[in-house]
């Protein structure tokens, strides 16, 4: 009964919200602007909310123990599936450029960039437990380092890549120093501020960064000295291999570069996690005081987490600069930090596979959804839905937000929340989300 009342209430709220937003549409004609009502569309949405809420409450009302068991079985299944998912994803990523479609390779490059950023941030947030809302700052430092070094001193991409990483790492340590004493929310606020400071400095230091106009003509990377230019002469990729010069060669090359960089990030963080340093990070996330009492130098441990996390952000930034060939402060706004953090949290803090899946869903999924919705809109020619159908792509952010909410209700600890202990004497035992929750002391 309460469920029914609750559902009615939700439907009323939906009516209030969507009534004006969806129910009224402006139509411009020769005689001016007219308002047109669309009661059917509103009715469909309100109905969906009503039954959705009712369904959710019934699902929640199940026997608690049964729900827990079902959840655990689900986690087990996911863990088992994880063994197969990883190689499948790797193969798919390797094979993607052979699809020959420029659109998919570009999308894949974008997704991989976010996967790499996610893995980098995962070191700071997932392993060391330091909530960083300004990760985009290091991305920006890496991008501008490469752009400025390349355009001013005429250095190549492969020379600048480590330099960009080192500079971003230094920025990470610089940020780390003042926030050593801060935890939780306070740390988040300061890192958020740091992200904004970097962006504003880039915007206003016109003599160095060219301000809001950005930096243009950033050189592309080379393959062992072979350029990817269109003239097809000596010293170019196409000329060397006797191929017809084509843009797609460069696009595919860039794809494999970011693929390699992302794998490097993954490999390094997996190795680090098995090292004493990685263990110290995880211990730091659990209890700082206990860490100190065991003789762990908390300052250095935190700074290395910031530094190494930032370094990978810097690598990704340098790649971003070389791919776009143009950067401006506009590319490094807060929304980037938020997206990367959402990827890490959605993926399950500390889980490498989870971060990859979340990046695919968040970045690739959004694009796929847009395609799917346009396709659906084209197919549904019916009078009733034609209005909604043409606007469907506009609703993708709404659907995306809804998906996030559903995720947080169903799997609040992220997609892949189980975690294998880094070291164990006998066979490793997988510990599922329920125990993770209990284990919080």
């Amino acid at each position, binding site marked *: 009964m309460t469920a029914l009342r609750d559902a009615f209430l939700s439907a009323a709220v939906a009516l209030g919200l969507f009534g004006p937003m969806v129910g009224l549409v402006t139509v411009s004609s020769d005689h001016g602007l007219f308002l047109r009502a669309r009661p059917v569309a509103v009715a469909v949405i309100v109905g969906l909310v009503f039954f959705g809420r009712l369904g959710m409450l019934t699902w929640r009302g199940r026997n608690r123990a049964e729900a827990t068991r079902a959840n655990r079985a689900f986690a087990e299944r996911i863990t088992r599936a994880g063994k197969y998912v990883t190689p499948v994803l790797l193969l798919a990523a390797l094979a993607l450029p052979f699809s020959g479609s420029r659109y998919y390779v570009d999308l894949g490059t974008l997704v991989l960039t976010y996967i790499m950023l996610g893995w980098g941030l995962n070191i700071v947030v997932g392993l060391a437990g330091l909530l960083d809302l300004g990760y985009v700052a290091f991305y920006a430092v890496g991008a501008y380092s490469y752009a400025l070094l390349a355009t001013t001193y005429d250095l190549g991409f492969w020379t600048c890549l480590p330099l960009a990483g080192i500079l971003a790492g230094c920025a990470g340590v610089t940020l780390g120093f003042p926030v050593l004493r801060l935890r939780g929310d306070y740390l988040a606020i300061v890192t958020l501020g740091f992200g904004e400071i970097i962006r504003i400095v880039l915007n206003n230091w016109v003599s160095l960064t060219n301000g809001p106009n950005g930096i243009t003509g950033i050189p592309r990377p080379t393959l062992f000295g072979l350029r990817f230019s269109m003239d097809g002469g000596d010293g170019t990729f196409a000329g060397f291999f006797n191929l017809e010069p084509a843009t797609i060669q460069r696009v595919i090359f860039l794809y494999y570069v970011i693929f390699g960089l992302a794998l490097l990030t993954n490999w390094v963080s997996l190795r680090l996690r098995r090292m004493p340093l990685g263990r110290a990070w995880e211990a730091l996330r659990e209890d700082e*005081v206990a860490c100190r009492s065991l*003789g762990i130098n908390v300052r250095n441990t935190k700074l290395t987490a910031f530094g190494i996390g930032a370094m990978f952000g810097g690598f990704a930034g340098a790649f971003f600069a070389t791919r776009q060939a143009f950067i401006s402060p506009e590319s490094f706004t807060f929304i980037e930090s938020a997206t990367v953090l959402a990827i890490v949290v959605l993926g399950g803090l500390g889980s490498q596979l989870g971060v990859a899946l979340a990046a695919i869903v968040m970045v690739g999924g959004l694009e796929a959804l847009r395609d799917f919705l346009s396709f659906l809109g084209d197919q549904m020619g019916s009078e009733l839905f034609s209005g909604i159908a043409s606007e469907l792509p506009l609703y993708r952010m709404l659907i995306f937000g809804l998906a996030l909410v559903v995720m947080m209700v169903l799997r609040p600890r992220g997609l892949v929340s189980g975690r294998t202990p880094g070291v164990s004497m006998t066979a490793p035992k997988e510990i599922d989300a329920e125990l993770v929750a209990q284990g919080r002391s």
Partner: protein
Amino acid sequence: MTALLSLSGVTAFYGAIQALRGIDLTVEQGEIVTLIGANGAGKSTLMMTICGNPRARTGEILHQGQDITQFPTYQIMRRGIAQAPEGRRIFGRMTVRENLLMGAEVAGRTDIDALLHQVFALFPRLQERLSQRGGTLSGGEQQMLAIGRALMSRPTLLLLDEPSLGLAPLVVRQIFGAIRELNRTTGLTVLLVEQNAYQALRLANRGYVLVNGSITMAGTGAELLARPEIRAAYLEGGGHA
């Protein structure tokens, strides 16, 4: 011969509030020394001040004759002082083995297996639970883990802060038995903070009584146990655990 640890005139503050008012205390090599006192007397503060967190405002703390008052916490711990802090503070989401390895970080990470075996000899229960998460252990097992973790750094001085807190009497006896065993076989020096005065004083060679941030009494364990004011203040009514 210099004492292993000696404090003289140590004061410590939390903001404007003075928690320690000039503490003088020595711990000799191979002793078990206990510090008893009521809630809020400053026992845990004293432990933490030895570790440099909060730092002593005045006075000096000598470890093996060297002044460690201004040392950063992690360096104090690396000198061979280990603490099993109050409330155990084990890493709940890490396995028992990982927790123990965290303790070995300071010891130079050699002979890990030998260290692990020493801990398992003392607390066989930990070996059974090796790949289990710290947070899923019972209270007593967590306390064993906290002590085991502290022992992994091969300390010369072990600081134990209320190891009996929240544990069943039987488990308390087990833990105190293990401490006595350690002291007897390896000569490990122990500074023990306890509210459970009866057990602590029976275990200890010497004891100090802390009241409102100052030491009011000192003596051997047996002496203190026999003092009528101690019996009145800390034993009767408090109950024997």
